[in-house]
């Protein structure tokens, strides 16, 4: 067997000519390989990645839905247990998309197999897209699993399928990018849990998962409007229940701006090799 090969995955330009690395087909193959590696990774450890959010959601439904919910009654005309569903699903999408990117990329840095990607002809944007797709896959898989759990406790309805998938997809993209930024800067395992614990969880809990901001005093209503997760959860709640504390366009505006800014930022980090190259 010859060790050398002339793969059609590469551009075969001669010296002096501008040469790119991967052909479009080669780039697609590289993306699929990275995505499948990410999906296999979280699939192999489903007991750590998929099962805990399902159990946690079930507990939320038991405690807040069945035990406390009947005392609350309805919010905006919707039974409390049903009101909880969109927020709990999206909370899983947010945390799992973030967790996948941050743990996978930091793990690759820590064990140094990120070098497999850095020495390859995959451009920075493609590596980012691969990791984000992995985060989206985990976020949406867990979101789907949590939805199945919700079906055991509440009647589900969908007001707008397009908005449902649009908000879920964009949310998972945004938080997968956030996880990637966190992973680039992280130098210890502690660093990958700081943002989820001290930033994401409080913002999510205060972002209207369990209540409508109309139930708050004026001051806290105004303060809540500075929490971007409020817009995202309400956009998703609109997609499922047709009710929202904020206009739906604001959900898309927050998500679109967040995705563009986060992508450009992480692209800059990758191109400069911050946290990756000496």
């Amino acid at each position, binding site marked *: 067997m010859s060790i050398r090969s002339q793969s059609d995955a590469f551009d075969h330009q001669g010296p002096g000519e501008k040469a790119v690395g991967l052909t479009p087909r080669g780039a697609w*193959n590289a993306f699929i390989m990275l995505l499948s590696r990410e999906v296999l990774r979280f699939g192999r450890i489903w007991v750590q990645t998929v099962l805990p959010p399902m159990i946690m959601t079930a507990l939320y439904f038991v405690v807040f839905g069945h035990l406390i919910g009947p005392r609350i009654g309805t919010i905006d005309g919707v039974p409390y247990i049903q009101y909880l569903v969109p927020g709990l699903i999206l909370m899983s999408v947010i945390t799992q998309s973030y967790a996948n990117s941050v743990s996978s990329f930091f793990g690759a840095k820590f064990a140094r*197999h990120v070098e497999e990607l850095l020495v390859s002809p995959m451009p920075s944007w493609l590596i980012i897209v691969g990791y984000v797709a992995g985060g989206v896959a985990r976020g949406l898989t867990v979101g789907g699993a949590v939805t199945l759990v919700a079906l055991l406790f509440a009647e589900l309805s969908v007001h707008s399928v397009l908005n449902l998938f649009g908000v879920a997809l964009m949310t998972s993209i945004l938080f997968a990018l956030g996880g990637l930024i966190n992973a680039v800067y992280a130098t210890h395992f502690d660093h990958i849990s700081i943002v989820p614990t001290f930033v994401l969880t409080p913002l999510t809990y205060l972002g209207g998962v369990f209540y409508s901001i109309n139930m708050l005093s004026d001051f806290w209503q105004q303060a809540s409007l500075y929490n971007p997760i409020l817009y995202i959860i309400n956009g998703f709640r609109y997609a499922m229940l047709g009710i929202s504390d904020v206009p739906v366009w604001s959900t898309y505006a927050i998500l679109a701006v967040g995705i563009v800014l986060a992508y450009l930022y992480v692209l800059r980090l990758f191109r400069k090799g911050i946290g990756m190259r*000496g």
Partner: protein
Amino acid sequence: MSNAVEIYELEKTYEGGTRALKGIELAIAEGDFFALLGPNGAGKSTTIGILCSLVNKTRGTVRVFGHDLDRDRAWVKSQIGVVPQEFNFNQFEPVEEVVINQGGFYGMTRKAAKKRAHELLKQLGLYDKREGMARALSGGMKRRLMIARALVHGPRMLILDEPTAGVDIELRRGMWDFLTQINKQGTTIILTTHYLEEAEALCRNIAIINEGRIVEHTSMRHLLGKLSQETFVLYSRDPVQSLPEMPVQGSRLIDDETIEVDLTRGQELTGVFDVLRGHGIVIERMKNKTNRLEELFLRLVQDDDAAINAEEPS
């Protein structure tokens, strides 16, 4: 023959001010088996890191197969396979997946990458282990796995950073044979190693780097030709009472069966054998006492250190 690598005025200063490379110049011909030697911290891994895009250079130009690294980085990467010093694969993946994934990152389809991975794993004696977890492999097997991974996309140039560190002698020889074979098939190989006999056995050309500067860049034959003296150890079949006078720089009797002779350039061992035979001394076997390259290496590095010290103001 065109050059696989051309490096001009390459400098690297790390954060914190450490100057790892101080303007090195290097040319490596296509198809060469090239050794880059130097003591720890000399700049070998930094040079290789820059070639592989794992380290950002501070200044200078790097061309690979005629393409500028800055301008055509992705293309340059596609031409190179890298075997790093440390194990840098996912230890929790099956062996074959480590190789297949890398093929994918170089744009190969899963089917093509799997076929090639199996061929390489067979050649490197890892095929039976392909479904096991990579972490379960021995140190030598992990090194071979990294070679398979580096070759999966069929690179024109293979860069090996200490590939046989911690590998037992038998496996090391097997890896030498394998590397020699792929070099004969046209793959340019750049090797850094601490085993100087490895460089001497495998490489045609060599550069010695010390404190971020190239102190020697020549052919292995030319470098070894610089040796002014070599010492040989001769083992006599029978006890030797005293040594006759011999036509060499120096000779001595170590014990009653062991003789050492020092030869300077131009002196021949045949003259020594003639004298010994004339005195009834039969030599059963012999060996070169010192590693020739090691001797040269030490001398060059020491000379360079002395030159640097002389330049520095007191």
